[in-house]
């Protein structure tokens, strides 16, 4: 078994829609060690969720994997059939979604929906399953589990429902938990509780977490590594500190300028990133961020930037990092 739990290399994936080929992922590589937390940040449509879903084999039709390899926990996801994937989903890898209000089926009780996943992946007896369901609810901090198990989703609050989703996801003690913007739909105090709960459970159960978010505050406090995505590319990847204190891509810098800081002067303004995201039906030839970049150079529009490495894990794809070399090269 490789040293990584998740090893995605050079993944390219497109959605073939009636309007044309939407290039959702262009050369995405991601590695996660056991028990590690990786944050994937980026704006809507940057390919964060698609990366995660493709790892679970949930991008079928009209999505199509065009290249690259996806390895997870000793499985080569590319070669697996739907039936084999069903054995992994909810078992070795689980996911919690953005909107807990709609992610639970309204016509079944909480208990039914938790027991379902246990029935599917374990050969426990009925009473063992019931005990485990009760235990899971306690694990995610829900009181009176016996009463809650009999309730329907509409009888619970949003935060409570997300806890139930986490309980379902953790039922079979997965190796990897994918959290697809788990707190976006919740109010701020509940957000903090849910994140705290996730970290607590990570330590208790030793699973890895892939945290998809556009909230930089969330990744800063939780993640070991961060991947910054833009238009289906990973534009910068590194340890959390690298990304926050030593950003090497103009998009990352822009993101950091657009969030409020605790140590800012009184009247400091936030700097938004101007412009609109790229159209993935017709992605630009050069750097996808070029049209919105303050530092855009001629070469940025013509060619994709090569990967520049800074230290062991930190890398970025920005021509600015090559600037010194390029200018030096010209002079010679």
């Amino acid at each position, binding site marked *: 078994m490789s040293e990584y739990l998740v090893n995605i290399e050079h993944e390219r994936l497109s959605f073939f829609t009636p309007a044309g080929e939407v290039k959702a992922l262009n050369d995405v590589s991601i590695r996660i060690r056991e028990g590690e937390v990786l944050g994937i940040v980026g704006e809507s449509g940057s390919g964060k969720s698609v990366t995660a879903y493709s790892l679970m084999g949930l991008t079928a039709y009209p999505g199509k994997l065009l290249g690259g390899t996806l390895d997870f926990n000793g499985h080569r996801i590319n070669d697996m059939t739907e039936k084999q994937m*069903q054995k992994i989903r909810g*078992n070795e890898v689980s996911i919690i*979604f953005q*909107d807990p209000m709609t992610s*639970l*089926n*309204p*016509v079944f009780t909480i208990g039914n929906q938790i027991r379902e996943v246990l029935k599917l992946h374990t050969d426990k007896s009925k009473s063992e399953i019931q005990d485990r369901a009760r235990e899971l609810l306690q694990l995610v901090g829900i009181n009176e589990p016996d009463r809650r198990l009999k309730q329907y989703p509409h009888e619970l609050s949003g935060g409570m429902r997300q806890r139930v*989703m986490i309980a379902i996801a953790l039922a079979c003690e997965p190796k990897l938990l994918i959290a697809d913007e788990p707190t976006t739909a919740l109010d701020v105090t509940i957000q903090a509780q849910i994140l705290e709960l996730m970290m607590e459970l990570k330590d208790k159960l030793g699973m890895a977490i892939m945290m998809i978010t556009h909230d930089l505050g969330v990744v800063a406090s939780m993640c070991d590594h961060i991947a910054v995505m833009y238009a289906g590319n990973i534009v910068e990847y590194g340890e959390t500190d690298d990304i926050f204190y030593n950003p090497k891509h103009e998009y990352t810098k822009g993101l950091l300028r657009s969030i409020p800081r605790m140590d800012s002067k009184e009247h400091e303004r936030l700097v938004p990133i101007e412009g609109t995201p790229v159209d993935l039906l017709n992605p630009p030839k050069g750097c996808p961020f070029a049209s919105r970049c303050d530092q855009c150079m001629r070469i940025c529009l013509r060619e994709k930037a090569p990967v520049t490495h800074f230290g062991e894990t930190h890398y970025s794809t920005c021509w600015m990092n090559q600037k010194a070399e390029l200018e030096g090269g010209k002079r010679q």
Partner: protein
Amino acid sequence: MAKYIVKRIGLAIVTIWVVATLTFFLMNFVPGGPFLSEKAVSPKAMAALEEKYGLDKPLWEQYVTYMTDALHGDFGASLKQRGRTVMSIITSKFPVSARVGGLAVLAAFCIGVPLGCFSAMNRGKALDSFIIVVATFGIAVPSFVVGTVLMYVFSVRLGWVSSLGLKNWTNYILPVTALAFYPTAYITRLMRSSMLDVLGQDYMRTARAKGLNQIISLFKHALRNAILPVVTYMGPLLAYTVTGSFIVEKIFTIPGLGGEFIGSISNRDYTVIMGTTIFLASLIVLMNVVVDIAYKLIDPRIKLK
């Protein structure tokens, strides 16, 4: 729940009373009467007939008399069919219509629901398009065309089944098919669109993410949510279909209740008009209560107040 049912029954009585009252007065305000025909009836005979059935009394008094009798379960005698009471007409003809109509509704449900699900699951593929085209055709073609064509092909040309009456079970095939044609097509379309809606819901994604296979996620998670619009449609459909279709009964010469509705109106058979209308109204009201209760059982979010 019990409180709700009691309340609904109270409301049902009011509804039926309103329907009965409106029908009674509308029927009487329309010019003409039961004993007018091409053959002139002598004024004396007319007066005698009107007196016998109480039609010479002021309208208000007729209304009160009718309602009082109806409350006691007496819907009067037919004005045109000698020696038959309205009750006996309904009790003898309704079972015939109910058998044919009930089978038709059952067939429509059992074919329409799976077909709609199947179509939704194969959205955009050739089979889906085929099902939509056939369903649209089924909705567009009126039952008298379906009935006539069926009869011509299977009875007259091929001679597989007898075309008239309801002597044995094979006689049921054609009228039931003719009656089920439209609702099957309608349920298919209803089920397809509602299933498509449900398949796009977040909880279906959750079901897949849990590792459920397509069959279980469809039957367990999708069907129960998607069937609600069909249930809504089933209530009135059942009420209308079991009380018989005039057209289908005429084509296949079925002695059902459907003919009585139309026949009583053209004959101005006041008591039969009232009786059949109240019967249909009661059935519809009853079916609506049943639908509401079914709703509650299917979707726990619905509160019956």
